């Protein structure tokens, strides 16, 4: 099987290692990965801020770049949501583009749902020593229904013990521009998340979205707390032979 990697702008620019980990996991499972050049941002920041005409232009660009791909896989749940749920509605006045958007939407997957639902794989052969908790990224969870897939993948990682995070589905307060537009509210939400992460006690939190990693990771570092947040792909790419 051959998939096109949609890296997402946050992952590309801030967490390139997550992109590498995603590619390694997919390849290890025999999936051929391509990286369509010319891909940029899916337009979610503009969309969520209400600039839908600007978003349409970015969506058209995205569709042109990815249209030839058999399947599109991204390590970012909210970006997958954008393409799958928002693109078709974005072109409600334009049936031609709407058809193209809908065709693309059907073939776009968040990484963990691609692994579990499409490839039918739950054990990717990874090893990770220690306790981890799992934070549900909002869009992956509620827009794509990604709840069990990451947990199943984690349950097969050798050496890994999954511990409960209370209200793991409670938003961490990122929300894109929300975090800078409403810093006080966003910061208070982050504080609650961090309190629960500390209560769960596992040194590592796993999630499926670069936004949560940036937000929670930045908060943990600001407070100097001994917890780290990593992307699911990083855990899944990890095995004895790998560096780190």
């Amino acid at each position, binding site marked *: 099987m051959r998939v096109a990697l949609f890296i997402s702008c946050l992952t590309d620019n801030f967490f390139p290692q997550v992109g590498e980990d995603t590619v390694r996991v997919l390849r290890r499972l025999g999936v051929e990965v391509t990286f369509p050049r010319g891909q940029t941002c899916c337009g979610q920041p503009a969309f969520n801020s209400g*600039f839908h005409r*600007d978003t349409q232009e970015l969506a058209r660009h995205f569709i042109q770049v990815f249209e030839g791909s058999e399947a599109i896989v991204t390590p970012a749940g909210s970006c997958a949501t954008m393409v799958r749920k928002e693109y078709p509605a974005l072109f409600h006045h334009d049936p031609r583009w709407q058809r193209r958007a809908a065709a693309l939407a059907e073939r776009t997957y968040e990484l963990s749902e691609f692994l579990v639902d499409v490839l039918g*794989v739950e054990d990717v*052969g990874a090893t990770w020593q220690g306790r981890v908790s799992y934070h549900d990224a909002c869009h992956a969870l509620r827009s794509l229904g990604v709840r069990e897939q990451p947990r199943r993948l984690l349950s097969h990682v050798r050496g890994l013990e999954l511990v409960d995070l209370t209200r793991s589905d409670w938003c961490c307060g990122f929300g894109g521009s929300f975090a800078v537009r409403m810093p006080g*509210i966003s910061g208070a939400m982050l504080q609650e998340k961090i309190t629960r992460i500390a209560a769960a006690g596992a040194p590592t939190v796993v999630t499926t979205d670069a936004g949560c990693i940036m937000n929670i990771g930045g908060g943990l570092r600001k407070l100097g707390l001994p917890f780290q947040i990593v992307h699911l792909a990083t855990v899944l790419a990890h*095995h004895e032979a790998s560096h780190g």
Partner: protein
Amino acid sequence: MAEHGYPSQPFHVRVREALAKPSLGQALDRATQRFYFGRILTWKELGDFQTARHTARAARRRAVDHLDEYLTRLAENVAANGGHVHWAADAAEANAIVLDICRQANARVVTKSKSMLTEEIALNDALEAAGITVVETDLGEWIIQLAGETPSHIIAPAIHKTKAEVAELFSRVLGRPVPADASIPELTLIAREQLRQRFLDADVGISGVNFAIAETGTVSIVTNEGNGRYVTGLPRVHIAMMGAEKVIGTWEEWAATLKMLTRSATGQLISSYVSTVSGPRRAAEADGPEEFHLVILDNGRSRILGTTFRESLLCIRCAACLNACPVYHEIGGHAYGGVYTGPIGAVLSPLLFDFDRFKELPHASSLCGACRDACPVEIDLPRMLVELRRIEAEGEDGERPHAPWTERAIFALYRLGAQTPALYNLAAWGRALLKPFAKGEQVPDAPLPVLDGWTRYRDFPLPAAEPFHARWERLASEPVGDMKRRDAGTQRKKD
């Protein structure tokens, strides 16, 4: 004094004050989380709760899609039962109608059961200005009436107050000491003593309406305190106040929707009291009012009907979206500045009242979607919040956009950058810009607009020295064989 139903302070000030009040977090946490888990448990008890949601939604949709027909049928049946129907276009008309009925009845004391609609139109102020004594009889409403506040939650108006704060309020207002550690039953007993005589004194009782059943001209009220029955049954005159969208077609649809209302509101299979009132007392009946009036209020609802926001009229005011909302959880209801709070308030306030005075509310959401999942009639609240942001950013029907030009310019630049892969080199640009503020790979403090809000609570990562797209060539040439080494250990169910 602040204009009723409108914020008296800018949004950021309201938020700052709410976040600075530690007792607010405690009070909200206890009550909203109890409601939240109560809803989840009682939805589960339904077994196939999705079907129950679809059924409730379909019932509400039929009513809203045929609003004129349903309202006409409702009005005909209320009249046939001997009741009077009054149509009010806006708050002023509704208040004038009620005042008129009260004057006709020579009313000096009016009792009220809980009604968000009367909060919406500031009915109490209008009646009191005319010299009528208004007594709220729902415990939460009575508390905020005594405190001179507006409700902070749709079903639990005084949810922002701790027990100790209520005890302090009672001491002050009633002029007798109430211990700070008084229990809820003790506080309730005080309210009961105070209110009992009022029920008997009242000339007119005013209630809200949870559902108005068109096929028989019946209004239905859902309460937990029994006060609703005193208000609707004891005084000579009963006035029921409803938003035009509260109509529902049949008793069967009422049952399907009621089932979702009590579960979603308080996590009860059924509330302590569900009253249904079909007009005034009849000849053979011993109890009930001599007169029954139904006031049907538009107040902006028909304007929403023809728009993409029509779905917001399906709302049954259960407040499940508030209890599920992490933003509401942090700031409470008063920060929303209007009568309706939480996610549904963030949608309704700009639509029903004043777009510009509530334009921050649609932004007060991380779009996490918890409200959509919690809504018993499946209202897509995040979609509507984004659509309100769109109207602000782009303007509606050739109107000028409300968003400042700076913000529009930022997104125009962003679009240009992201459309042009050559310009889309965020990492290099950002890294160069932020490098002077960085410690290692993190920016702990950035005295830059936009970013300073971020770094108040978090470090900001420096954009990567080598972004992913620059790594691809190297990654693509990595031998795959090595990576497949552990393939033997994987389980493949299908290809």
